[in-house]
């Protein structure tokens, strides 16, 4: 049987109806991985035997009626910066190439409780720093639509694996667009949740005040279900917020009457590819047809989003990454002269260029004499960005924008130009700075045949509104059901 056209929820239903067993579903995904991942390189670690064993266990529980969650038994995969006990968690870095955490991330525990079957760990930009998955120590991931192109990043492995049907859904993490942009590049759906909605305990920190774990799936309904599963207050994460669980039950009627959507004109100016602009504006029209009111407005502050983001994110990263010393765990250079040499050489050989660049940038903006000029100013602008979003949400239910200025580019095309790479984050970083949620869903294709994503941005904990609009859109469009050739029936041959 082929599960290519099935969503995670559909597969979960099939398992419940005994149309397929969890083991069969798992084996099919493992076969897909075997056939396709040489080209795609979405996985750092494949848990072949473990996944089958886990599926057997979960199936037994389902049969006994002990496990009734909608996604019980459905095979999935996890970005490699989320800790999984005794299973490699590399962050795509040489520094952690052999690191097996002694504990589980809270989301890993939640997945296990809900009967998820973990197929493996997914490739990513090193320590989630990058937008193309090219900075991974384990080599770049290819975009399943064209493996000579990047899948986006940093959750490139997550988006590529879902697009290539090498898993039914995945967890990613988003610090400045790391879920949304790869979803856009690979034609899949994803949610960057409100900061504090999902526990960060066990997510290896890049920029603590911006990082959020979120779902990547075949459609927004899957994503909503996954988010329900992984969200909620965690006593182990002080920044996770106590509030009632998400309720998406009223989100799937397809009716958008009375919904007000703002379009910030600043997001559609210079630098945006025509290839992206056209489908995004068409998507706005589609939403209008569904009953939404669309209105343009200006939001000048977003011009400062990129510098602000890079100052703050790198500052936090420089602190978060100083613990990797080659002594306690991870990569250690042998044959060193003395302790200092162990530190220097291990860090020098363990970290890649992009990570080093950000550590240096972050150390600089925090150093005495520069703190006020950079970090402190960054915090102030962050406050202003939040304020302008607050003002926008007084008028609109949500904001519509592109996810990225371009479609997926060729591997190697931008990797020598960090500034150009950073500019690719222009539409996504301000959402993290404001701590608000956004979804990314497929809305068309460029002339090069590569997918284009649409971003819907909401107020804090307005995920249900975003899901409602995204679902209404997906109900009458088919961009999200299209799949790359390699994933089609017989794609394994």
């Amino acid at each position, binding site marked *: 049987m082929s599960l290519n056209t099935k969503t995670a929820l559909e597969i979960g239903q099939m398992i419940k109806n005994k149309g397929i067993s969890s083991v069969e579903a798992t084996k099919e995904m493992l076969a897909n991985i075997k056939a396709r991942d040489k080209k795609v390189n979405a996985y750092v670690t494949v848990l072949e035997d473990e996944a089958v064993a886990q599926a057997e266990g979960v199936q037994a529980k389902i049969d006994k009626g002990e496990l009734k969650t909608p996604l019980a038994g459905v095979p999935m995969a996890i970005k490699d*910066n*989320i*800790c999984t006990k005794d299973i490699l*968690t590399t*962050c795509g870095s040489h520094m*952690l190439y052999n*690191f097996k*955490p*002694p*504990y589980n*991330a809270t989301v890993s525990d939640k997945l296990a409780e809900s009967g998820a079957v973990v197929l493996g760990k997914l490739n990513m930009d090193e320590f989630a720093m990058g937008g193309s998955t090219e900075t991974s120590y384990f080599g770049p991931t290819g975009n399943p639509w064209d493996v000579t192109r990047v899948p986006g990043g940093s959750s490139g492995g997550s988006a590529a694996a879902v697009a290539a049907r090498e898993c039914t859904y995945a967890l990613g993490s988003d610090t400045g667009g790391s879920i949304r942009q790869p979803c856009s590049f690979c034609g899949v759906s994803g949610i960057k949740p409100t900061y504090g909605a999902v526990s*960060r*305990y*066990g*997510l*290896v*920190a890049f*920029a*603590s*005040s911006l990082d959020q774990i979120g779902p990547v799936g075949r459609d927004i309904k899957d994503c909503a279900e996954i988010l329900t599963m992984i969200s909620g207050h965690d*006593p*182990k*994460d*002080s*920044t996770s917020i106590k509030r009632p669980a998400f309720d998406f039950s009223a989100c799937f009627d397809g009716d958008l009457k009375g919904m007000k959507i703002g379009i910030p004109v600043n997001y559609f100016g210079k630098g945006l590819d025509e290839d992206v602009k056209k489908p995004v504006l068409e998507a706005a029209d589609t939403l209008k047809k569904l009953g939404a009111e669309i209105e343009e407005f200006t939001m000048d502050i977003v011009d400062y989003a990129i510098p602000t983001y890079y100052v703050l994110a790198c*500052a*936090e990263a*420089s*602190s978060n990454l*100083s*613990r*990797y*010393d080659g*002594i*306690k*765990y991870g990569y250690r250079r042998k044959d060193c002269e003395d*302790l200092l040499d162990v*530190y220097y050489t291990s860090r020098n050989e363990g970290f890649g260029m992009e990570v080093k660049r950000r550590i240096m940038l972050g*150390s600089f903006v*925090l*150093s*005495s004499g520069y*703190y006020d000029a950079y*970090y402190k100013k960054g*915090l102030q602008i962050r406050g202003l960005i939040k304020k302008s979003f607050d003002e926008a949400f007084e008028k609109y239910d949500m904001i519509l924008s592109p996810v990225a200025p371009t479609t997926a580019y060729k591997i190697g095309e931008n990797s020598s130009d960090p500034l150009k790479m950073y500019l690719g984050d222009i539409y996504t970083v301000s959402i993290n700075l404001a701590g608000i949620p956004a979804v990314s869903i497929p809305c068309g294709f460029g002339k090069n045949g590569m997918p284009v994503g649409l971003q819907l941005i909401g107020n804090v904990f307005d995920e249900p509104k975003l899901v409602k609009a995204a679902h209404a859109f997906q109900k009458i469009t088919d961009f999200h059901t299209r799949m790359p050739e390699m994933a089609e029936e017989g794609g394994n041959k």
Partner: protein
Amino acid sequence: MNYQIVVGLEVHVELSTKSKIFCSCTTEFGGEPNTHVCPVCSGMPGVLPVLNKKVVEFAVRAGLATNCEITRFNKFDRKNYFYPDLPKAYQVSQLYLPICRNGKVEIEVDGEKKYIGIHEIHMEEDAGKLVHDPWDDCTLVDYNRCGVPLLEIVSEPDFRSAEEVVAYLTKLRETMMYLGVSDCKMQEGSMRADVNISVMPMGSTKFGTRTEMKNMNSFKAIYRAIKYESKRQIEVLESGGVVTQETRRWDDNKDASFAMRSKENAQDYRYFPEPDLLPIEISEEWIDNAKKTMPELPEAKRARYMSEFGLSEYDASVITAERQIAYLFEDATAICRKPKEVCNLVMGELMRLMSDTGTLAEELEIDPQKVADIIELIDSGKINRNVGKEVFEAVFKENVDPVKYVEEKGLMMLDDDSLVEDTIDEVIKNNPKSIEDLKAGKDKAKGFLVGQTMKALKGKANPQTVNKILNEKLAEILK
């Protein structure tokens, strides 16, 4: 030229919470290396801190006891520095909004009182410990202490002598112990101080360049280090030199300090707000509650012991010097209502036994009821004072029950006057020399006869009865 010494202190106090500041590991001292650790305090990738609320409570208490303003809106900051005993490579501390500010502590030296300003008190986590193994010539890391909560109490540079510093430290230690905030065990490093010293010409108002000595954990060493370092600075200035701002290491064995790190090599800690912890807001209600539940501090206790129980100033200050002893005194007094007797027993026997056996106050496990029982036994004439001391020693050493002990050992006083009389007759008969002495006017001999009588009666006689009967007999003989 005469010089004025100027000293400022940064005192670190380890808090006696059960668990660490950001995880549930125990704070207990000792333990096999790296057994009181978890992913959080060993800084594993991906972990997050969760604040132990008790730390905030203790910090507020310490702040109130040192007359500080309590900061209502608190934040933590990261202090970044790379060192093998700090597994995250940053210490969570408070730079911008410390929990307590602008306090003062009154001290007294040679009858003169003065206030020492408290600049701030902030909360932070302790680092681990490096252990050098001379046999294998390697250094090992023990993370047990990582994440043990600390208060850093930063004074103003208000000290003008080593004596003032010691008076302040003594007061601070006493206060923290009474608050139950810290056990302040110097030898275990749960109280330690960074000492900043400078000198300036007498009468000047411009401070000289200071040097710092870090992590000093004995009052004696601090005292000597201040004496030494101020003298060294004066000598530098007198010989036309300049004092360099630097960190110096005090070597208590060599009785000298040595330069470690100059200002040019000073660390840049790259402080920034800790993103993993939310700000803490302290409400008025919280502070009121802390005020209400504040234990009585030693100064107040001393005053009360003098007015309420009629103790001398000296006795009151000895008894209040250690919290455990003060509580023992108060609790026993509350039961038997004989403060003077309890005080005598504590001042005499308890202090002696503690010093003989090297017992620390925090190790005392004496039930105040037992102390009260002993006082009762003496007071009701069931045992005499000397037997009382013996019983107290048995309580101290073996935790016996005083009433049972007295019964089992047959220590009750004799109320059989005829036995006393017979014994005295016997003693007089056997000591003709003493009678001769008495006749010759040497009154001391009477004491000897009392002693011999008590000895023969195994101490169980009431000394008053012995004295009375002996006096009657002697009066007859000497007539």
